[in-house]
């Protein structure tokens, strides 16, 4: 009994210790951003590997999600004779919810896991220690550019996702199911609000970008420097950031649209 209470206490302490280390790292990352901004080449390299290389999975998924939305939406709306509103439905769902959330989940799987594995392996092979001894701060040189690149990439990727999704919905709704072309676009234009819908979506994806990259970078930096430790850290990145995205999405939605 005592043992169980002890181990419960120990794991609670471990949890809060990790949480503390995570926040200290976040502060260090934020402090490191000015030194990254003066060397844009570092960010550009990371934008490529974090953002550009995630583009294909985002675009393809966006297109399919849009097509499914087109099909499902049409089948429901046609019962009420409201299939002309398909464009609005597809666009609002994408811009407010699916764009930021699905992009963040895909981003966590594609780029987040890669970031954790890369940083974790650099730690395991003493590359981070070697940098420290060369008087190069790994937080500023390695972690901060990746963090910033993730934060910048996420809203851009979410925008691509939504844009391609709208096209996917158009392809199915207008191209295959015969919804009126003009109605699809004009209703969308009339009903989607820049502030309420698009800006809120962008805010969501900025928050998700921050959280997912922070978790990914922290897990890599905090990984136990063995192959098992790195593999566990990679798994944790995907699990924790997916849960964080879904939880935060609820909170943000409640705040924005509730």
């Amino acid at each position, binding site marked *: 009994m005592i043992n169980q209470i002890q181990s419960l206490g120990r794991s609670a302490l471990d949890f809060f210790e990790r949480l503390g280390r995570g926040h200290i790292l976040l502060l260090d990352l934020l402090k490191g951003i000015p030194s990254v901004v003066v060397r844009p080449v570092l960010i550009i390299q990371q934008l490529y590997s974090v953002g550009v290389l995630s583009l294909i999975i985002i675009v393809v998924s966006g297109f399919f999600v849009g097509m499914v939305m087109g099909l499902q939406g049409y089948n429901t709306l046609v019962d009420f004779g409201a299939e002309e509103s398909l464009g609005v439905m597809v666009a609002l769902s994408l811009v407010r919810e699916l764009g930021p959330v699905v992009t963040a989940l895909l981003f966590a799987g594609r780029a987040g896991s890669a970031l954790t594995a890369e940083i974790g392996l*650099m730690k395991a*092979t*003493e*590359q981070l*220690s*070697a*940098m*420290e*001894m*060369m*008087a*190069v*701060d790994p937080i500023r*040189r390695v972690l901060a550019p990746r963090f910033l690149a993730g934060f910048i990439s996420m809203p851009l990727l979410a925008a691509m996702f939504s844009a391609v999704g709208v096209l996917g919905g158009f392809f199915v709704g207008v191209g295959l199911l015969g919804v009126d072309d003009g109605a699809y676009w004009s209703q969308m234009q009339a009903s989607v609000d820049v502030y309420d819908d698009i800006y809120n979506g962008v805010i969501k994806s900025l928050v998700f970008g921050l959280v997912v990259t922070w978790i990914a970078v922290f897990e890599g930096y905090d990984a136990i420097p063995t192959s098992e430790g790195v593999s566990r850290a990679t798994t944790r990145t995907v699990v924790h950031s997916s849960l964080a995205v879904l939880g935060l999405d609820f909170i943000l939605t409640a705040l924005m649209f509730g």
Partner: protein
Amino acid sequence: MEENNTLVKVRNLKFARGGRMIFDGVNLDIQRGKVTVIMGPSGTGKTTLLRLIGRQIKPMEGTIEVDGEEVTTLRHRQLYELRKRMGMLFQNGALLTDLSVFDNIAYPLREHTNLSEELIRTLVIMKLQAVGLRGARDLMPAELSGGMSRRVALARAIALDPMMIMYDEPFTGQDPISMGVLVRLIRNLNDALGLTSVVVSHDIEEASSIADYIYLLSGGKVVAGGTVDDLANSDSEWAQQFMKGKPDGPVPFHFQAQPYVSDLKIG
């Protein structure tokens, strides 16, 4: 021992990890321009000592002075300034795997200086020539053998012309030829560049052949210190066991256990 001739001065160093005391009051001095070897059985924290000197970790107690500066209390910026004057060779080289050999050696130069690419190229080639790997400049770290990686890492460690280099187990797992190369390089670079070298090792023969001074560590303390001859003729049982590689002595062959006979009877 002249005071101003000491580059690294460690006093009453205490450090524990996971509840185990690794250093319990270590005192040692490292002389400028000399090759100082720190030896001891595996697990005595030799690598930890180097990390403490470079302040990658902080001690619980005690002082570590490097070139007159107290490293345990340095601020971030001052610490990084000091590290520019320290080189460290990690056991596996710790080269940056996404950069070629050339770029690895150019890395500290590019990070810390505003030299032109032309000048950097000249410097890198000079450093590579010093370790005999000028022809390997376009290879990636994954294409190098263990010994070559360490030589590239050595070239990188001397890129900024530091005042001292710390070698972490440089001879471990090397074939006789690359071992010989490394032994010669450590001595030659030390003398030619006027460096101070700290070598952590348990390869007695190789380390002894280049050591100006040797410290033996065991049980969290310096148990003996002196030149190679001093230690070979030392009365200390411990020094005798270690230098001659005897399996039993002050460091027992058996790990701590209950008496053998009672252990057998239990089953």
